[in-house]
């Protein structure tokens, strides 16, 4: 009988250890989730409470104009902020993916002279600190009256996502087998048909992944939203930061509820995108 284990697999011992590490690492997040169900006194209790009676008030407060239990009236408008975030991020990323896909196709299939230089510049615009661009953008918006409205921030977020989309989608196009396209051309397909009928269907999953990654990045964006959105167009991150500064102190329960609400789609997405995860977080530069 063989007791000797085969090289490369580990058993429940490793699971237990990994579980311990995983929980410790995940603990700060776990605490956020717990806090979302706490009443205000519970959230700020000393010593920190691990066991408490849960309440759904925080979640309700996120969407409806009411204060969360236990605190003074702090009317929230989070339904509006949610909408703003979804609308602005969603539209911007969608536009960016469309524009980016066209450009990515060109970079991949119709390389220009100096292709690499263009791609480098594009990547740099993504990697530079937003701080550098913020000043002239702010001035531009002020001059053209775009500040505080939807169009300004939307356009900006689109520009924000284009480099990332180009790099990511290009990496998907680069992996396609060009022989299929050649075969289609032999059969008389026009270049447009090759693009829409042959290439796009093969990278649809990649496009979806690009969209989702872009969404996560844009949704969380803070600095530009801080400076360029107005009262009506405020996005969630800015609203969260603002609740911190109130004189009643932060309503952590409410904030926790917001973060928890986001965690659900994020878990979902992490699971769905695990194959593309590496590519997504390195902006398409690392595939494996």
């Amino acid at each position, binding site marked *: *009988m*063989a007791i000797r284990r085969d090289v490369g697999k580990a058993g429940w011992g490793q699971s237990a250890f990994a579980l311990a590490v995983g929980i410790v690492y995940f603990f700060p997040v776990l605490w956020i989730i717990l806090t979302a169900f706490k009443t205000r006194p519970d959230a700020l209790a000393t010593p920190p409470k691990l066991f408490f009676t849960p309440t759904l008030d925080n979640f309700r407060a996120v969407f409806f104009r009411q204060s969360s239990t236990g605190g003074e009236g702090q009317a929230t408008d989070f339904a509006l902020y949610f909408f703003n975030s979804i609308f602005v991020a969603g539209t911007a990323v969608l536009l960016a993916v469309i524009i980016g896909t066209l450009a990515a196709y060109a970079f991949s299939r119709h390389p220009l002279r100096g292709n690499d230089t263009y791609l480098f510049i594009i990547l740099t615009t993504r990697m530079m600190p937003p701080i550098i661009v913020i000043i002239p953008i702010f001035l531009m918006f002020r001059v053209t009256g775009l500040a505080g409205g939807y169009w300004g921030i939307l356009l900006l977020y689109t520009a924000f996502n284009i480099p990332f989309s180009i790099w990511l989608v290009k990496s998907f196009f680069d992996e396609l087998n060009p022989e299929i396209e050649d075969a289609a051309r032999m059969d008389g397909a026009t270049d447009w048909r090759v693009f829409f009928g042959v290439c796009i269907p093969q990278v649809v999953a990649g496009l979806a992944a690009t969209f989702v990654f872009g969404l996560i990045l844009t949704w969380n964006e803070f600095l530009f939203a801080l400076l360029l959105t107005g009262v009506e167009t405020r996005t969630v991150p800015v609203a969260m930061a603002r609740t911190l500064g109130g004189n009643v102190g932060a309503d952590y329960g409410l904030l926790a509820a917001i973060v928890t609400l986001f965690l659900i789609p994020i878990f979902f997405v992490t699971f769905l995108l695990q194959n593309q995860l590496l590519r997504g977080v390195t902006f398409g530069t690392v595939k494996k």
Partner: protein
Amino acid sequence: MSIELRAATKRYGALTAVNAIDLDVADGQVLCLLGPSGCGKTTTLRMIAGLEGADDGTVSIGGRVVNELSARERNVAMSFQFYALYPSLTVAENLAYPLHAEGLSSARIRERVGEVSQVLQLDGILARRPGQLAEGEKQRVAVGRSIVRDPTCFLFDEPLSRLDVQLREKMRGEIKEVLQGLSRPTVIVTHDQLEALTMADRIAVMRDGRIEQVDTPHEVFANPANLFVAGFIGTPQMNLLEAVYDRALDGGRGRFTLEGGQTLSIEIGAGIDSLPAGATVTLGIRPRNLKIVAEAGEDCLSFSIDLIEPMGAETLAHLSEGAGVRLVTDWRHPLAEGERVHVCFPPGVTHVFLEEKLMTARHRMPVDEEHAA
């Protein structure tokens, strides 16, 4: 220092990859595990190496049961199908790698590497990395890494399968030379029968996790134990004809009726006595043993030539009315497609298989007692 497997078994879930096989490899002997893919030969090799654990049965090396020992503890040398050369190390460092575990001085290590390098003609490439080597060179380094040490046994997994045909021919000879110099049991896994026939002292033909026959290359070729081995060994493949055994004739001959009504009276040999009358048998005869004769006879069948394939020094003819009977003859013999020929079954070369087992063993070549099956 021999290798012994007794009822060794390996299962993967519902699949039994290796099914209770018995195997013996004596010191200095080269045994080839030969068979189609999926037959369990590589798994068997890995069980000897310790990379797979046996689920049942015992694996012994040097008289000692090693089931519980890890590969490291068994001190075996193995050459992998994909060479498994360490990509970040030079050839010299690759060759030296196993020696570090033996606590040798660096001078002694360098010496050993030098010796092996000379034997395998690696002197020119010692400073290169695997990524810069040609297939043949990589293969030699892989072999070198095995022979640089003094292990309990040598194991080779498909050593030549990644080489092109010409390189394979060349390397076969070189490896055979190297193997002859080794004094430990050696097991080679291959799916290429030519490799097995040329390099092995004994061949174990495997199918579906079982050993069909263990014998010297000659015996496996001349006296295949069953239909599978008969069909597997030898190119072009042995002709296998279904026939009904009518009755015995004098002189060790028997009369058979084939599909389509033709009868054949051929010399079978001693096995004729154990054939029940009326039994359905399979007649096996190698394409090269069939002879074209001018006139019909009792020991001949008549066919028409469907297709002729010139093979250089020989010609392969596909015959009809025999359900795929093929014949090989010297290239000078004139043949024409559509021609009708009489094909003779010379005495002493036809095998008879009853229910897949061989009934008629040819005269065996004298072999060493210690290597007898």
